[in-house]
């Protein structure tokens, strides 16, 4: 039975049918009919943000922590353009989002009407797909298709631009089951023959390593479970990208820690020295590979990815497997068991011995201080005091982000949200709110740098209004720390505009927002202050004044291979050549 209704009502109906329980948005002239419908119902909760970029990052936090698509509703023109950064962020990190934008009425499109922007034109390269719906009869089907596209294959953000007259007009509602989605059905099962080749290589490998990424998390919790089973069955070492943390537990005995530019020594050297690399849902990003020419020179490489374009894009692999991680790992395990596979025990024993030597280097060690709080120490304490809690971590972008990845341990998937591909300062605060909205009783902490945090700090208002007790743990070095580090290493210590001047008093700022502010600068007070933050029933802005000139190590300088990693200050003299300086 089809039902006649307005386009605006269709939007709400379609969202309900898709199981949406929360929308992050901001109203304006071009979406008023939809807001009118939102007003007249109680099934979908609307979170009023303070800036549209915040809405998109909140939806990302919601999506990453639940596995469900995040939904955003914003107005035309500036509403849509403000959402662009979030769209690209979600595109780079493969986060499923459905973003609805208002548009000027169809008869005004192209006239430079008030708050008109070519939203589908602007966001075409920023989305997985987008639509301008000019006919109410097509609106509900398009929304259902949008959810399908956002969540199928490699997930990503999609956008639907809805002119105001389309929201007012009436048409038949197309229910979810009737929406045509057949044309977009990415391949999910991996090629059994390629998987057989991989299994055979796994049996022979002397120096294997699992290199896992965000694809494991995106594939769902079962993918992580299967990955753990496979690691247990093979006893191979495993490392992960920034995006994949939590798919294998940090406490697991085969865990090497994160790899990449600021990854652990043992993880990067295992990647460099392995003879079999099994890439599961990662994409050979440049933060991972370093100099491509010298990347893992002696290994055969297998790559499991749902996106065929990821395969052979940067690194040529020997065993390409296009498919969903869950289904592929299921088949790998099935074949492994069916063949009664055994690993190369002698080789593996030697490999683990080598890894133990690398581990003994203790690459994360740092010189602690009794006078100033070292950022690494602050994170170690945060980790110790929150371990075992129902905890979610988001971050901003910079040194603090890398330290958080190094010093916090993630036992489960979907517990760690950070802006990986785009590296968006201002991501963490709104993302933490999105996570908290999805998990009202959990402890949600945004590990922030003071500079990044200021980029979307207006969202504290959102946290207050919707009682999201997010903890803003700001590692305040009064510096754009990561920029400062690069200037130190690459630009002759000329610190051009990399300090945070005229910072607000964060405690007073917290008071102004009506939440709690905590300032801590003495290492002795740190534990109590952290506990106070955790115990406080409401949002907290924690101003943790840390050492201002700490550098983040290990570091693989741009343009260098994995085995030329810097471990500490002593290694840093003249490290990055002119060629490396060109790279970001």
């Amino acid at each position, binding site marked *: 039975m089809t039902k006649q209704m307005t386009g605006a009502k269709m939007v709400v109906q379609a969202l309900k049918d898709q199981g949406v329980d929360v929308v992050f948005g901001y109203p304006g002239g071009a979406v008023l009919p939809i807001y009118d419908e939102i007003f007249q119902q109680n099934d979908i909760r609307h979170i009023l943000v303070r800036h549209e970029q915040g809405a998109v990052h909140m939806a990302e936090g919601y999506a990453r922590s639940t596995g469900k698509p995040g939904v955003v509703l914003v107005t035309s023109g500036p509403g849509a353009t403000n959402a662009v950064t979030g769209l690209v962020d979600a595109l780079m990190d493969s986060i499923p989002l459905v973003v609805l934008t208002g548009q000027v009425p169809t008869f005004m499109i192209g006239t430079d009407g008030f708050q008109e922007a070519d939203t589908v034109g602007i966001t075409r390269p920023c989305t997985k797909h987008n639509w301008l719906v000019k006919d109410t009869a097509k609106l509900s089907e398009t929304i259902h298709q949008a959810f399908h596209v956002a969540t199928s294959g490699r997930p990503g953000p999609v956008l639907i631009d809805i002119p105001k007259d389309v929201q007012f007009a009436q048409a038949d509602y197309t229910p979810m089951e009737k929406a045509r989605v057949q*044309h977009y059905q990415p391949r999910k099962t991996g090629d059994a023959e390629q998987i057989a080749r991989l299994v055979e290589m796994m049996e022979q490998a002397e120096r294997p390593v699992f290199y896992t990424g965000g694809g494991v998390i995106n594939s769902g919790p079962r993918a992580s479970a299967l990955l753990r089973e496979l690691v247990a069955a093979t006893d191979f070492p495993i490392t992960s990208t920034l995006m994949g943390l939590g798919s294998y537990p940090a406490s697991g005995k085969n865990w090497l820690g994160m790899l990449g530019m600021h990854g652990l020594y043992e993880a990067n050297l295992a990647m460099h020295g392995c003879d079999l690399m099994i890439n599961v849902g990662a994409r050979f990003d440049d933060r991972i590979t370093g100099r491509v020419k010298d990347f893992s020179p002696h290994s055969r490489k297998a790559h499991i990815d749902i996106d*065929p*374009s990821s395969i052979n894009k940067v690194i*040529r692999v020997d065993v*390409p497997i296009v498919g969903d991680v869950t289904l592929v790992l299921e088949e790998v395990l099935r074949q492994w068991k069916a063949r009664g596979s055994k690993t190369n025990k002698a080789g593996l024993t030697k490999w683990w011995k080598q890894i133990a030597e690398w581990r003994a280097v203790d690459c994360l060690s740092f010189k602690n201080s009794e006078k100033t709080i070292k950022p690494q120490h602050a994170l170690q304490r945060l980790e110790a005091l929150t371990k075992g809690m129902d905890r979610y971590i988001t971050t901003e972008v910079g040194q603090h982000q890398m330290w958080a990845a190094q010093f916090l341990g993630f036992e489960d998937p979907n517990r760690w949200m950070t802006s990986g591909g785009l590296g968006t300062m201002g991501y963490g605060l709104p993302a933490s709110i999105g996570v908290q909205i999805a998990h009202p009783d959990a402890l949600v902490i945004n590990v922030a740098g003071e500079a990044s945090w200021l980029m979307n700090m207006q969202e504290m208002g959102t946290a207050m209004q919707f009682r999201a007790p997010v903890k803003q743990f700001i590692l305040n070095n009064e510096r754009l720390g990561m920029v400062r580090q690069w200037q130190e290493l690459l630009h002759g210590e000329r610190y051009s505009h990399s300090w945070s001047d005229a910072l607000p008093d964060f405690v007073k700022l917290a008071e102004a927002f009506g939440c709690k502010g905590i300032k801590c600068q003495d290492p002795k007070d740190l534990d109590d202050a952290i506990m106070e933050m955790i115990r406080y029933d409401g949002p907290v802005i924690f101003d943790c004044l840390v050492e201002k000139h700490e550098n983040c190590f290990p570091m693989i300088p741009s343009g260098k291979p994995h085995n030329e990693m810097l471990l500490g200050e002593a290694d840093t003299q003249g490290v990055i050549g002119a060629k490396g300086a060109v790279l970001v």
Partner: protein
Amino acid sequence: MSALNIKKGSTSHSAYDLRDHNATVIESHTLAVIVENEPGVLARVIGLFAGRGYNIDSLTVAEVDHTGHRSRITIVTSGTPAVIDQIEAQLGRLVAVYEVHDLTAEGPCVQRELALFKVAGKGDARIEALRLAEIFRANVVDSTLESFVFEITGTPEKIDAFADLMRPLGLRELARTGVAALSRGA
């Protein structure tokens, strides 16, 4: 006739692909891309090429299946084998793209382009232009006492050759459609 009825050949991801992927030699490839005929689809394809720095040497597009809303975009592009593979994969992941065929890699194909030449001249040059047009099987589709418009169909190379000949004979304007291509055989 269905626009989708294109023979599948060995693709670059086949186990029997014997091309050298580390080759740095630049190859020219003709791609047939079957897309949903929806607004903006051409912008998506062109934007992908521009955004990722791929070359477009020629591009044609038209609806080929009205009931199925399918258009066929024929793109002539150039790049190393690895880049050509990436282009194919990147096109393939666009939601509005149904099929991508590398006609150059999939076997022999026919390629045709249509061009219009305006050639102005008097006396011997005019006679010579007409004589060459006959040799090239170009048709005269407009004529004044001082000019011709020739219509010519052929491979891009043939049209290039004709252009080279017309230039000294008074070539004023040239319009080319870009390449349309189909694989040979059933």
